[in-house]
């Protein structure tokens, strides 16, 4: 395998071996602390324009499986790992990770001291850009420093056209900001008849479909870059039908209801933080992936109630509207990858839709 380098904005360079595509890419460098689930992670659109450093040291062990996609066309910029195995062992796999990355023009680099990078990024250095390159020379650093990452990320990954995911149950409209498939799988399990709409859909577009409920999906980037149209849509829709929002959708739901957001000093991607469900006072775990958080103080208590909170960093993890059957969570309730115990939020959504009927 070819010798390649991970270079970072702070001037550091790490030698490793290339795998996947041989492309030279740049992106924001983030760390993922999940124990398993590399395929779900690399295919999740929230990692658009990002180079992912994996804490899990051995990657590729179970190949690529048809039921572990979170999107079909991954848009992450790279994988940084300690050790990669080029294998397809799982009965369902037809593909090794290496081949998959080549097909999607995503470079990977192995043999990197990922623990060092995670300690560095998590414990102080803050967010930075990085590149996977063939030569770590001044030119490569110049290129990296000159790189401007797009802030039109949702446009890049979300569907431009509506499409259906038919079934026989509740009529659900999913607004796609970079939808992860886990959400669709959870709705399918509950027999929902889903229509996925582009994120630019207006309230009228949504209501025209006469849905029982609407779900705002996960997605990449900053919610502050999406303009006010989407917030208007949310305000109108939440007043009419049950609404459930996840990840980026949660951040938009908060904005639409008067709360403010802050960028975290460093993005958090993992599933080890205890999250308190305030109403029952119990503790759950869920995969989290966030660069922004709702500022607790900014929450208008006449409109929103905090429902979940991260006990480690204190971030707001869930909100509920006081007047409407509308609620949201910052973490990924579909649990793909990661713990499953927050999947009952989809049941809650179903109940809200049923209650509206009754």
């Amino acid at each position, binding site marked *: 395998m070819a010798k390649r380098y991970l270079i970072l904005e702070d001037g550091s360079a790490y030698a490793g071996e290339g795998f996947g595509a041989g492309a030279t890419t740049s992106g924001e460098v983030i760390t993922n602390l999940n124990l398993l689930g590399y395929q779900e992670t690399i295919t999740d659109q929230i990692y658009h324009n990002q180079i992912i450093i994996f804490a899990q040291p*051995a990657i590729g062990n179970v190949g690529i499986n048809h039921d572990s996609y979170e999107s079909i066309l991954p848009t992450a910029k790279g994988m940084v790992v300690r050790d990669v195995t080029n294998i397809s062992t799982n009965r369902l796999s037809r593909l090794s990770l290496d081949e998959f990355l080549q097909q999607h023009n995503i470079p990977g680099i192995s043999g990197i001291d990922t623990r060092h990078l995670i300690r560095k990024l998590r414990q102080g250095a803050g967010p930075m850009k990085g590149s996977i390159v063939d030569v770590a020379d001044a030119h490569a650093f110049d290129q990296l420093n000159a790189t401007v990452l797009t802030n039109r990320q949702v446009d890049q990954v979300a569907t431009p056209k509506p499409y259906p995911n038919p079934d026989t149950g509740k009529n659900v409209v999913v607004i796609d900001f970079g939808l992860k498939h886990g959400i669709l799988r959870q709705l399918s399990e509950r027999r929902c008849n889903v229509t996925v709409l582009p994120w630019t859909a207006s309230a009228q577009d949504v209501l025209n479909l006469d849905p029982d409920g609407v779900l705002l999906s996960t997605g990449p980037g900053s919610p502050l870059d999406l303009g006010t149209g989407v917030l208007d849509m949310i305000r109108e829709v939440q007043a009419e039908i049950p609404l459930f929002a996840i990840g980026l959708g949660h951040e938009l739901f908060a904005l639409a209801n008067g709360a403010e957001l802050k960028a975290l000093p460093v993005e958090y991607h993992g599933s*080890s933080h205890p999250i308190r469900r305030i109403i029952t006072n119990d503790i759950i775990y869920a995969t989290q992936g966030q660069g922004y958080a709702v500022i607790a103080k900014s929450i208008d208590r006449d409109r929103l109630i905090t429902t979940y909170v991260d006990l480690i960093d204190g971030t707001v993890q869930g909100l509920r509207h006081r007047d409407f059957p509308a609620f949201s969570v910052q973490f990924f309730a579909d649990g793909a990858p990661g*713990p499953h115990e927050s999947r009952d939020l989809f049941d809650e959504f179903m109940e809200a839709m049923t209650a509206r009927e009754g």
Partner: protein
Amino acid sequence: MPNLDDIQKVLIIGGGPTEIGHETELDSAMVQIITGFKKRGVRTLVIDNNPFSVALEEIQPTNMYVQAVTTANVRHILEKDQPDAVLPSLGGLLGIRIAQELVENGDIGRLGITLLGMPADTLRQINNPAALNASLKEIHEPVIEAKIVATTDEAMGLVESIGFPLIVKPVAPRVDTNRTICENVDDMLTALNQGFQQSRFDQCTLERSVVGYKEIEMVAVRDVADTAVLISGLEDMDPIGIHSGDSILVTPPQTLNDREYQDLRDATFRIATELNIVGVLHIHFALNPANQHFYVTKVAPYFSRGVALAARTTGYPVALVTGALLLGQRLVDVKLPSRFVKQTAIMEPTIDHISVRIPLWPFQEVPDADQHLDTVMKAVGSTVGIGRSVEEAILKSVRSSQFSPRDVLPSVSNLTDGEMIRQLIHPLANRILVLIEALRRGYSPEELSELTKIDNFYFVKLRHLLTIEKQIQDHPMDTETLQRARYFGFGDGMIARIWQTDTAAIRELSAQAAIQPTYKMIEPTAGEFPEDTSGYYSTFEYENESQPLGDRTALVLGRGGNQLGPNSAAEYFTTEMLKQLKRAGYHTILMNTNPNAVGIAPEFSDKQYVDPIQLGDVLNVIQLEHPDIVIVPGNRHYLTRELSKLPLNLHVLPPDQETGKPAPKSATIGVSLFIHGQQKVAVGVMDMLAPGMNKSLAQVTAFRMPAELPKAKRANLVELAKQAASERQMTGMIQVLFAPKSADSAQLAVVGVRPTRLTEVAFLSKVTGVNWVRMLTRQHIGTLDETELANISVDLNSTRVALMNAVFPFRQLHVLNRPGTTDQEVGATIAFGSSEALSLANLSDTDELDQIINRTI
């Protein structure tokens, strides 16, 4: 729910002696739990009869019941001492069974005693598979049920619901029989016909066979508020069919996808909730790799080797946390020592390294045992290797398990192809070496996976190691190759062997090329938080996290995995030595690979390195830490010899048991002396008992103190012993051996002098109340003064008599019970009593000795 705030006094049911199935991990957990209870103002009583217990050193003699762990003895303590609660989960399955009996016969209820860790109903279910299966079925957890049939028609009726392959087993067989795995109806009918004949009731059981499935284990903790944290998943490399204790274990699991893993995590939590477990829970699953379906195969709500491994390899303080949970604290409120980030107890561990545990088997010492690995556990110990790749972790664990003094792997290249294939299908203790050999001979990973049901992934990894080995062969003294070899776990000794040079040359080349180890912390947040857990392993990467401890440091090398012989005693020795070094103001560093060791718990040393105890790895640690003292165990001769060539302050502790002089054939009395300068302190005069016909010294595995001799005779022997010692100029703890002058003579004569064996050092410490390990340690580090020693008075004529008897693994290994030898010991039991109670009159075999020790008080 009982009010746990009112609990002030707890009885802990101990695990008894070390044997196959449990080692020192129960003792290790017990020490930590006792410490935690103490901090919370709870008084702890302990019943245990393990003479090598460190936990028994931690509590006041008034709280200590050195008695056999039996239901009657526990009941007696409950009645006499009236504790508020009893804790069974530190006694393994035995503890659970005793607690259940006490519930069932009404004692627990009558005395108003609270059960810690689980309710009475759960105890009952753990002891009754049918009841457990019923409640698991209620919460829709799949279990393997055995159905009883009396006719082939009945069996045919069940075939569809059970499915092939299935297992036929006669009910209450007249002869010792095996389970028969049947692939089709013909197989089944044959097995049934045979089984009906063998059964006393003309019945057989039918159950689904999960042989060949993956065995996955989950270790979790849960609190009273139903919050649970998964500590770790463990993957058995070998499939179901080989006992998990005999399988190579990998953590975290490497061949599961996220969904499979999370499904098992969900099931673990559901079971914990259903059984209302508070504290640790260890569950085994059989996972069908073809369709992701799983079955629950074992539920163990108690401390186990799996729990110990999870604790060691994640850095999550399982025992500390469990101690708090048992007293009703919630995970979110558990306060940990300051070295941990505040909320570590409630964060689910996430791990950025890989650990591989390899079992150690006793076949060298017990060669007539059936050496095939099957559903009955035979291993007596294990070693763990930790690395940042699967290859590195495997190699480090193999290098630790083979105990080659020069750190090379044994070759199995002399196997014929036929033998090799037989061993692939019916594995022996050298399993891993045979797997590698098969790859070397050109078998593909897929073929071997098909043959062994070991996941293809592991063969791909092993084959990668062969590729690197080839590269080493092809590029002698090449630095890039050396970098790669070290990166993937090759030891300096292995590389030196291939390049036909010595370790020193390898080290010199490494130094020139700056190929230096980097130590990584074993902590449960994968680098997210600045934990300071004090456990490290080596790898060859960019960042080193281990900073030297600085002034006044002592590096203690452990003995590695448990094997037969005085290993539990050695573990006791090492732990007490660490405590003493700390007390003497040293920063202590332990290097060990035994995940079940007591001393490896962070409580006993300032820093722990989990790395092979091989010359290269030891020198790497020395190079970093610059210890003032290096302590090497007496059984590591090559290592001692090599280290003594260097300018180190080297001490051999536990002392070398070999004197180089021939031992006497037999001895009946041993007099132990502690010799320091001019001082010779008499420590004990004991009967040396060799149950059985052949009374050779190697069969002296039981001891009684004081010896059944007249007072004057004991004094006389002590004088003779002192004389003998003076002549030989020995220091430390020695034992002068006496035997009758002739077969029909009552006259005793000195027949030899040797270092007091580790088992007897522990025994003498327990009996005299003087911690002789401390004395030996202080002698070595120069803090023992003669006057202090002179003031120690040991009552050689105590009316309280003590008896210690070795435990052997013969029953579990299915070999004929017979008098064992000292190198076949797995553990020991101890008892105290009056001279009448522990009289040895008419003693003829080990069983009688056991009866004396284990009788109910």
